């Protein structure tokens, strides 16, 4: 969800849909729910902890220095651990890399969102290692 959210902020269609579909698979929800989280996570039916982590991710997307101590404190108040804060920042940062890689080289992306949804279960099972990405 963090990956999909950051990719939507970076307007990277491919990444937004690959990872949105993955989140949809893991949450066992529908596309509408994922779209709601992306559009306005503050009013989505997700935990306060996840909301606070998405706020941090949104700041990372703008720039590392946009993350504030207040955002970190809020995340901690909702139970976020050092590991969760670390991973949130690194995931957000990683998608700032992947989104630029994909769009910076002008790659093509299937426009039909169902294509991504159909592939999510297989990707969830096989993971992201090199060999599995050839399928």
């Amino acid at each position, binding site marked *: 969800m963090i990956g999909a959210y950051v990719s939507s902020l*970076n*307007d*990277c269609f491919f990444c937004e849909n690959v990872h949105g579909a993955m989140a949809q698979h893991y949450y066992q929800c529908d596309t509408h729910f994922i779209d709601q989280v992306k559009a306005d996570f503050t009013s989505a039916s997700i935990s306060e902890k996840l909301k606070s982590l998405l706020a*941090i991710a949104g*700041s*990372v997307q703008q*720039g*590392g*220095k946009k*993350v504030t*101590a207040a955002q*970190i404190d809020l995340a901690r108040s909702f139970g976020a651990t*050092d*590991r969760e*804060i*670390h*991973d949130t*920042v*690194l995931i*957000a*940062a*990683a998608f*700032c*890399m*992947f*989104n*630029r*890689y*994909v*769009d*910076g*080289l*002008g790659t093509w992306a299937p426009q039909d969102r169902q294509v991504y949804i159909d592939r999510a279960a297989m990707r969830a099972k096989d993971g992201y290692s090199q060999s599995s990405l050839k399928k």
Partner: protein
Amino acid sequence: MPYISVDENLPGVRALLAFRPETATPIGALAEILLRSSDSLSRADRELIATYVSSLNDCFYCNHSHGEIAVCYLNGNRDLVDSVRNNYQDAAISDKMKSLLQIAGKVQQSGKSVSPADIINARHQGASDRDIHDTVLITAVFCMMNRYVDGLDAYTPQDMSSYPLRAKQIVEKGYGNHVFLQAQPDKE
């Protein structure tokens, strides 16, 4: 002051890598391939791209860390590295490098900011597919690393004499988990 509890004896990204060795390993492997290859783009070229992007992202630690590594590869020419940061169009670098830095500057803003004209210009200056690919990916990687370092408010050494020491260590040993597993380079 870092936002998470890290080893205060490790500077910048090194403290973050030590916090999570499982992600440190692939990050180090990626850095080793992208920044230490010398096919087509030289190591100096690669570190100059990294330095330029880090200066655009206003990440002090990465800008000066990779700037000093570039200085090593450029036989101490710190003025050249500064000129790339400040105005690469007038720097004493090849036209091919200028065209690649133009692409890097666009990618730093957004992948979508790269235009076909930028690519045509680079090809006109002799850039290969590999050069263009690696320029985009190095830029993208530093858009990640700069955010990782500043997003967690990693400790940024203000003592500028420490940067050349760590740079020498990287030039000699490359990137990898040794940067946080071994003692930090001290004054000679």
